[in-house]
């Protein structure tokens, strides 16, 4: 184990560790552009220069391996001068159009300029003109003038997506990043090049000019697009909704998790957040001949509780069916199971896959199961028997159907729903099933509540509340709690964490940073 000294602090690192990585272990951040831990080392931006004792030249810390006894100066006069020179070189042909650049505020040219800038320019020549602001794919806009040719994006398309759309063309200071002839950047992972671009060369088509990044707040979450459970951050604008057509969520960004998604996420997940702010069920509804009518929570919950109680009293627990969804969190599935199965003794419970078709699957991230929590539901005790349940409803043996989030579109299922005496719908977005339900309970999307999902390999990962439930909608756990009270079966789950504790016998803070497998602790509740 080599021991090296960085800025006077000693650190032990594994053989083969580079200086930039060793420095990070000490909390020393060395400026860099081309270096990205998820990509091969290019060593071309020369920004991460450091001084190494007994070496005449400055060394690039992204490629220099730690050797025992090495003494590194990341902030020595010579190292800072070297980096200043590199930053000056990078900026001479950069348009310096920060006021109209979307990257402003999260740009590494700006960030490193604070320490390494010359402030007084000595470049008096004409800057090189290049192609500006043109779409290279459905999601990505390229500005060649802002590009510093770090080649993170080309290495991403070579090494990670393996789709080879981007390359460096021409030579010297005429070099540009561009598409290879006949290609467009439309692979399922194209959005990642926006994240890894350290400058404003690659920006997001949808997000451009929507919001200055310093107005954004962010919260840790989990993507609900498939069973991979990519770790993401929700970037939202709590105060300036009028700027984006009323949308609160502005963009999603991947969060590093070496066990799940590394640094990446797919475009389906990244750009599939419309549902958070669009077509939402904003308040509870009671069905009528003229379709659903807004109601207050008291009335809606009373109606739902009354229907359930009446059916159980008159026809027994088998007359109430519940169809849950793997889009629900573990906490919601656990509380619903507790209420409907353990307390009310219902037997007709099903966890139904809401998607008719499997999603695309590949070797990188995408999983065919488009639900974030099928594993969790299964482990809590939910089983897939929705088809049988629907047939029972069709034959009149189920009086009340409690449906979480599903939309039934085929004729047979609609027939079954119509035959049931009473349909309670709890969900977030309007669909045909919600529109024909007798009671609609307005739930919250994952961005509006706390909870956990268990991904395809059973990794329990936490998501956190970023937003308040839209308008008069409520977190599903609160709705279940109130319903349980009305049914005389109070659950006493005051928040998601208390449910999690009842299920896993542990707190959220005991969950590992990168999640924990279902199998890692045996005392599964239910």
């Amino acid at each position: 184990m080599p021991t090296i000294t960085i800025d006077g602090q000693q650190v032990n690192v594994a053989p083969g560790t580079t200086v930039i990585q060793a420095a990070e272990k000490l909390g020393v951040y060395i400026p860099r552009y081309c270096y990205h831990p998820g990509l091969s080392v290019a060593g071309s931006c020369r920004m991460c220069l450091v001084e190494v004792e007994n070496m005449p030249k400055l060394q690039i810390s992204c490629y220099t391996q730690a050797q025992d006894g090495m003494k590194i100066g990341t902030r020595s006069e010579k190292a800072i001068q070297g980096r200043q020179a590199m930053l000056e070189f990078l900026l001479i042909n950069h348009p310096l159009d920060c006021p109209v650049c979307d990257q402003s505020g999260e740009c590494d040219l700006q960030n490193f300029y604070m320490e390494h800038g010359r402030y007084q320019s000595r470049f008096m020549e004409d800057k090189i003109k290049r192609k500006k602001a043109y779409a290279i794919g459905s999601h990505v806009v390229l500005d060649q003038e802002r590009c510093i040719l770090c080649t993170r994006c080309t290495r991403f398309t070579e090494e990670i997506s393996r789709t080879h759309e981007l390359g460096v063309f021409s030579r010297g200071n005429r070099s540009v990043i561009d598409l290879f002839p006949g290609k467009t950047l439309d692979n399922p992972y194209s959005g990642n090049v926006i994240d890894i671009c350290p400058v404003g060369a690659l920006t997001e088509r949808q997000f451009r000019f929507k919001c200055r990044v310093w107005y954004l707040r962010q919260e840790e979450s989990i993507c609900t697009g498939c069973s991979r459970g990519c770790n993401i951050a929700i970037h939202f604008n709590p105060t300036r909704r009028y700027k984006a057509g009323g949308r609160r969520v502005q963009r999603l960004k991947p969060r590093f998790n070496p066990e799940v998604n590394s640094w990446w996420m797919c475009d389906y997940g990244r750009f599939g957040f419309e549902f958070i702010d669009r077509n939402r069920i904003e308040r509870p509804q009671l069905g009528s001949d003229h379709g659903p009518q807004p109601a207050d929570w008291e009335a809606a919950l009373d109606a739902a509780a009354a229907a359930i109680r009446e059916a159980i009293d008159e026809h027994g627990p088998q007359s109430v069916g519940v169809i849950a969804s793997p889009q629900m969190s573990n906490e919601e599935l656990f509380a619903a199971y507790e209420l409907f199965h353990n307390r009310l003794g219902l037997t007709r419970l099903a966890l139904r896959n809401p998607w008719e078709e499997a999603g695309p699957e590949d070797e990188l991230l995408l999983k065919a199961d488009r639900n974030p929590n099928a594993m969790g539901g299964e482990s809590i005790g939910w089983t897939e028997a929705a088809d049988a349940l629907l047939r029972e409803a069709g034959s009149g043996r189920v009086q009340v159907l409690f449906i979480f989030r599903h939309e039934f579109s085929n004729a047979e299922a609609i027939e079954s729903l119509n035959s049931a005496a009473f349909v309670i719908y709890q969900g977030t977005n309007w669909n045909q099933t919600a529109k024909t339900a007798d009671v609609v309970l307005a739930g919250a999307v994952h961005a509006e509540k706390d909870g956990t999902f268990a991904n395809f390999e059973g990794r329990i990962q936490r998501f956190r509340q970023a937003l308040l439930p839209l308008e008069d909608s409520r977190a599903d756990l609160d709705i279940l709690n109130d319903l349980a009270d009305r049914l005389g079966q109070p659950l006493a789950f005051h928040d998601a964490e208390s449910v999690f504790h009842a299920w896993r016998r542990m707190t959220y803070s005991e969950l590992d940073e990168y999640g924990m497998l279902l199998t890692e602790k045996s005392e599964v509740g239910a």
Partner: protein
Amino acid sequence: MPEVKLVSEHFGNELARGLKWRLQNGGYEGAKKAMAMSPDEVVEEVTQSYLRGLGGAGFPTGRKWSFVPRDTGKPIYLCVNADEAEPGTFKDRYILEWDPHLLIEGIIICAHALGIETAYIYIRGEYVQPYERLQKAVDEAYEAGILGKKVLGGDVKLDVFIHRGAGAYICGEETALLESIEGKKGWPRLKPPFPAVVGLFGCPTVINNVETISHLPKIILKGGRWFADIGVERNGGTRLFALSGSVNRPGVYELPMGTPLRELIFDRGEGVLGGRKLKAVIPGGASAALLTADEIDAPLDFDSMAKIGTMLGSGAVIAIDESVCIVQTLHNLEHFFSHESCGQCTPCREGTGWVFKILGRIIEGNGRLSDLDTLRSLAENMTGTSICALCDGAAMPLRSCVQKFFHEFEHYIRYKKPYSERREAASA
């Protein structure tokens, strides 16, 4: 010192290009002798010869070979660098055009020394005639059973492929050359690992210049000691000098290492054109620091040139007379470097272009004295910070020109015209 013709022996003799004549006149004798020796003995002879890498870096050839691991289970490749593109350099061209079999013979010797079965010759794309003659020679060698499955009738095989470049100077940099042979963009690689360990297609690779390889037959025939004695200490044998610029008799001269630069210019080159005064000399290709006329007594060998802050480089000696403006000369050189920078790493991509633009502005008459500070500082910032040596190669002439001919730059900026010593003297 007299010319000693080791590799230039058959220059000008059209018959020497043909295998038949060549075989009757000592061709492939060195290779035959080498094949009878053990590989280690061959390496030992080359190490003793103090043969230096004649592409420009001057790295001792025997030592370079000694870095090649023999036990990796991977093939070892030889890449012959014939991408002669350093401005002013035209020595390898003569070997390729006049004595291609000498090169092939050298390749066989090197291949035997290191257990190589595949060799590539990376030849500059613009070298059409040299390529044609070399390809013809390779074909002849295959037909005669010199190359192929049974080298010289023995039991080892050796294939030689000629790979034509596409016009980029950077592909003469050895790792960019490897990338180019592999079919990729010619971008130099990060080092280490060096090509001797991880080279072509990830295998151990030796990369030697045409002239270096062409010296091998005589070294084997006459011995490493003999070769070493021709030159000076640690600089064995002779080398080809491509003399151009303001001299009466430009051309390729083969001289022993350590011959004074003055002798090359005034004896071989027969003095400065039109009887003018010598102002400066570029001693080793465009990447070398300029020498003033006072410095030309220095001996032409790698170590002596390094001692006076320049380099022997590719052996391209360009004489500059008093009528030539140094600012314009530098502008021309920096145009080359900014055009040929591969664009991979920052200081070279941006620095070479910036320097070229500043010099262009000075020549247009819009220079400022502060530009000279900027140029000097850029030369510092471009030195030792890039992946390959192209950037240092651009900084060397920049630094030396501004340092040694500061008055010319100052004059050009003040009076918007080239400095002339005669005019200055007349007006004084």
